[in-house]
Each structure stands twice: as structure tokens, then as C-alpha cells.
């Protein structure tokens, strides 16, 4: 069966419509609009390119983070568009997404896929080099109970980073566990989902925020 990816705004909407909370975001189609959104959301913010033809946004200079003033936002908007037009010429651009920049966050990944033998499978790991180099991930098979989700979080090697090391405050583990259970429930309920990739999820001592979402849907014949 064939599949198709949702663009980020669609993916966000998809999750939201199924009861998974997504930090507030807005779509801008001009520098001024981006600045207005940033003011409404409050600084600092992040800007991200939105285009069906661009999957890896960072690779084409399509992401800017920690923008603290109106000037920085306007400048970033321009530089994102020019960088994208240079590195992904001809890509149809839907706009630029504006969202709050989350500070003091730990990047984690929550992934879900459908295994040929076991059906839905959930993956959890720390973001960045932890997943790429150390393969520090845990797997679980839905439906995940809360204790199962808890042990998925606690069984990664890098768990002390979540728990808090060397005087750093711990991250909000229950919020993270909750998100894992929600994704597990989603995979059990919505059998059209081929893949969910929440990468990164930003975990602070307050909450867990989905900062980017990639979703792939199976096309029904």
C-alpha cells in the first residue's frame, strides 16, 4: 500500500484534532506577519519553513531558533527564504511557521511505526547524537500501560539526563510518559498511521512540548 507524508502544519493539526497538545504556532507569509505572530506569541521564537517538498528543513537552512527581537525575526524570515530558494530551488513554499522557543529543554524523540510482524511499535530516545551515534533507544509495543511507558523512559542509558544530574533540575517525566501513552493509543486507534515521528520533543521541568512532527499516512485503496 502506498503512503503519503503530511506537512508540518497538517501533522500538527492532525495531532491536535486527536487530543494531543501542541504548543501554539502560527503560519506567516511575510516578514511583517512573522513579527506580528512573534509579538502575539511572545519572544523568543523559532521560525521554520513549511513546504511539502522539503523534508529536512535544517539541511536547507530552513530553521532559525531563539529569536529574541522583532528585528531578528524579520531578518530570519528573509534569510530562511533566500537560503531555501538557493538550496531547494523551485520548491513550493506554504509559508514560515512561528512558535515559541522553549528554553532549558532536553531534546527527546518519540517515534512510532508499524512492524510487519508485531504491528504498531513505539520508540523512545534522547535526540541528537544519542540516537544517531549511541542508538540509545527503547522500544515498546502498544497498547502501552503507564508502567510500560515509564520503563521505556527509564531504561535508556541517558536517563540521568532526564532525571537530572549534577545539580540540574529533573525534567517533567510524567508529561513525557503521558505523551508516550497518547502516541501508543493513537497508533492503536488510527490504523491509517504508517509512521509518527515527534522529533524533537522538548522536555523541560514544566512540560513536554512537541517541537516538530512528521506523520506518514497509509493511502487506502
Amino acid at each position, binding site marked *: 500500500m502506498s503512503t503519503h507524508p503530511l506537512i508540518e502544519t497538517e501533522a500538527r493539526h492532525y495531532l491536535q484534532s486527536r487530543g494531543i497538545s501542541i504548543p501554539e504556532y502560527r503560519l506567516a507569509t511575510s516578514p511583517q506577519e512573522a513579527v506580528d505572530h512573534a509579538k502575539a506569541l511572545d519572544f523568543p521564537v523559532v521560525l521554520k519553513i513549511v513546504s511539502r517538498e522539503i523534508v529536512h528543513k535544517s539541511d536547507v537552512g530552513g530553521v532559525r531558533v531563539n529569536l529574541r527581537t522583532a528585528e531578528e525575526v524579520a531578518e530570519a524570515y528573509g534569510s530562511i527564504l533566500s537560503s531555501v530558494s538557493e538550496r531547494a530551488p523551485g520548491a513550493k513554499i506554504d509559508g514560515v511557521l512561528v512558535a515559541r522557543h522553549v528554553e532549558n529543554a532536553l531534546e527527546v524523540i518519540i517515534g512510532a511505526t508499524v*512492524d*510487519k*510482524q508485531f*504491528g504498531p511499535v513505539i520508540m523512545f530516545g534522547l535526540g541528537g547524537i544519542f540516537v544517531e551515534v549511541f542508538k540509545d*533507544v*527503547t*522500544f515498546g509495543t502498544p497498547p502501552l500501560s503507564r*508502567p*510500560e511507558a515509564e520503563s521505556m523512559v527509564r531504561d535508556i542509558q541517558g536517563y540521568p539526563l532526564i532525571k537530572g544530574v549534577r545539580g540540574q533540575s529533573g525534567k517533567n517525566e510524567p508529561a513525557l510518559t503521558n505523551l508516550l501513552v497518547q502516541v501508543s493509543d493513537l497508533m492503536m486507534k488510527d490504523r491509517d498511521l504508517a509512521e509518527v515521528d515527534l522529533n524533537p520533543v522538548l522536555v523541560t521541568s514544566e512540560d513536554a512540548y512537541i517541537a516538530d512532527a512528521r506523520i506518514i499516512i497509509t493511502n487506502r485503496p
Partner: protein
Amino acid sequence: MEETLEHFYNPDGIAVVGASQNPSKAGYQVVRNLTQRDYHGAVYPVNPGADNIDGLKCYPSLSSIENHVSLVLITTPAAQVVGIMQEAADRGDVKAVVVLSAGFSETKVPENAAMEKKLLEIARGAKIRVLGPNCTGVIDTATGLDTTIEPTVAQNRGGISVFSQSGALGASILCFMDDQPTPLGFNKWTHSGNTCDIDVLDALNYYGNDPSTKNILIYSEAINKGREFIEAAQRISPQKAILVLKVGRTELGIKAAYSHTGSLAGVDQVYEAAFRKVGALRMAGLEDMIDTAKALEMQPLPKGNRICILTEAGGPGSMAMDEIGAFPMIKLAEISAAGQQRLKEVVPPISLICQPMGYIDITAAAMEEHHTEALKCVLAEDGVDGVILLSVPPTFLSPESLARSLALAARDSKKPVLTCLLAGKWVREARKILEEARLPTFDTADRAARTMINLVKRQQYLSSLGGEVRI
């Protein structure tokens, strides 16, 4: 279609097609295993060229058997199997077929794989379940039924039932079990070979419902119906331990499994997650599997995770501690002040008591009564859920006598005691004495420790269910 192995294990009439008088043929050994052991059911050899095989009347064809036949064993060359399956289907009374013959999908030759597909098609049409091809079938120690060609497998009775996709490993498991200081018995044994129909899920379901199966051992290269496996295992695991040896942990293992039976092993971490979900114990190898099965068969589960290591020698003690230390879920036992005082009174003065807590080295000065009194002492402690007892009996201490005393000291204990007497030939008889008293022995201290870890894992799974711990 019946999702069961019932017709393989409790047949009403067995026909052996390809039965032979020639001792170098599989068809000879199969008839022999059915007639020379305890099996009392009807057996009908089929071979157009013989009147009589091993004292049994021989039939020219499957269709010429006038009595009821529910199980057919096929040992002919592969090319004849499809025709025989058709004959079995036409009879109308056949419910199960074991295809021992090789030369099907495992050869990777398309024509051979097509024959396998064809025979399965015929079987499905007639509601016949198939084991194999390229397999040896089943053994049941309770009835003496043995459809295999294995001449050497001992049939000691026990509560463990085995499923193996591989015949060699399946047989090795039985040989290892038989080779223990006191032979470890089994209940049922199923080998599925190419696994065209009956698979690990059927076996799991059957063993799960089988009252005489206490624990389940599985060797598998792939589990194709993963979700159903999870559901079945979730239902069975609270009552029976499921020990799984699953290859395909690395790319190379996956490739070998594929080349062996054409199984796509899948992502290992997903298996790992599934096994953990259902409380199945993943085995690192055959030793791990036999060790754990033996402990489950002979000892109660610990009620908690607090383990005491009682050793007569520092080296083996340290090895056991190293293993325990790698599993944060295990804690060393807390010995009360009164317990420590009592220990001090009954062990040699140079002993190291609770250094660290829960670790007791009674040293090579320890004589028989030091061993036994120390064991009784720690078993009586509330903070101890299980004991690993290690000793290298010194020259002037009789291992047999030590074993008898230890067996006595541990006899009424509701806590598991896993022992390791390390001295090769010198302790062979002593290990036999211990195991006859249902105190399992292990070749090395680290293996005893790994086995205790598996028991604790099992206990933790059961207590996570919130139900009562089986003891």
C-alpha cells in the same frame, strides 16, 4: 481449522508412509521409536514393498488401511509427498500430518517451494494440520509417543514443554537436559522445521492450555504473527514461564536464519519489547535456557529481589557479584544485626560477614557444619528472598556428605537456593545428590547468578500483574 496440536499429541491411529526395514532409513527409525517405547496406540506402517515391519503388519498404501487413521507421518522422498497428502485428504479421517521429508522450500529451489505450497493447499482443503516439512514432529513423555528419527533422546518426564523451529537445537535442548547431574525431564516436544503451517503460536497456545505443561521453552527464528503471539503470551505467561531463545540479534544472525528456513527475523528490538511486555524471558543461549528451566522446575520463585550470596571462596563469589551488579533490579539482601551475630557464631572466625551487606564469605576454612549452619541462618532472615550458595569443597571435606547436609538444610525452605559446587569431577556425585533433592546446581558461579536474575525477573513480572506470586 482447529488451532491446536491435539491431533498430533493424541492421535487415533498413526500411519507411517515410507516405513522401512532398512535401519539406515528414517522410515525405519520412526517405526522403531513408535514401537520400542511406551506408546500403546495403533501404528500402521505403509510400504508397498514389505509385508511386515518391526513385527507390525505393513500396508501397500495409505488408502488400504481399513482402521481409523488420524495422524500420518511421511518419510518418503519429497517428490511423493504431494500425492500422499492427497491420499490422506481423500481418506477423510486424517486430521494431522507430519512431513519428515526434506527437499522443499528450505532448498530455495522454486519447484521445491511450489511442492510445499501445493501440499499445504491440499491439507487446508481437507482441514488437515501440517507439521514441517523438514521436521521430526513431536515427542510426548506421558504417552511415549515419539514421531522422530532421534535414536538417542532420553524420555525423562517433567513439566517443561519444548517448541523448536530447528531440529538440531530442539534435540540439543533435550540432550542437555538429559545430561544434567540429575536428568531434567520434559513433557512435550514439538519441532516445526519449515513451519509451513503449525508454528510457534500454535505450540504456545497448545502448551498454554495443556495442564501437564508447567513451563515453556521456545527456540524460534521468527515469529510471524507477532500480535497474536503477544496476546497468547499475555494470557499464558501469568501461569507458565515462557523462555525464549530467539536468534537474529545481529545482522549476521538474521541472514543465517533466513538462509536456514527462509524466516525474516525482523527488528530484534521489537522482539525484545514484545517479550518484555508479555514477561517472556529472553535467553542468551542454551546454557541460560537449561539453567533457568532447571531452576524453575526445582525451586520456588523468590518473593522479592533481595539476594544473599553465601560463598566459601572469594573468586566465585566475586563473579556472582559481578553478574548481580549488572542488574539494578536485584538488590543484595539485608541481614539483620541479630542475623549477623548468629552468623558470626556459626562460621569460621576469619569469615567476612556482610562485606558488603548481603555477601558472606565463609572462606576455605569452612567445614560441613559451617556451610549448613550459615545457609540455615540466611534462609531464616526476613531480608533474604533467595540464596546463591557457592563452594569449592576442599580436599578434606567430602563433597557428597556436604551435599547431603546442604539438601537437608534447604529442604523446607520456601526461598530458592541455587548452588554451585566448583570442582569438576570431584563434585559430580555431590551435584547429583543435590539435584535429586531438587536443589539445582550450576557449572559456574556466574551462571548460578544469571539464573537467579531470571527468577527475579519472572517474579517481578508476576508481581507487576498485581496477582499472587506462584511458589
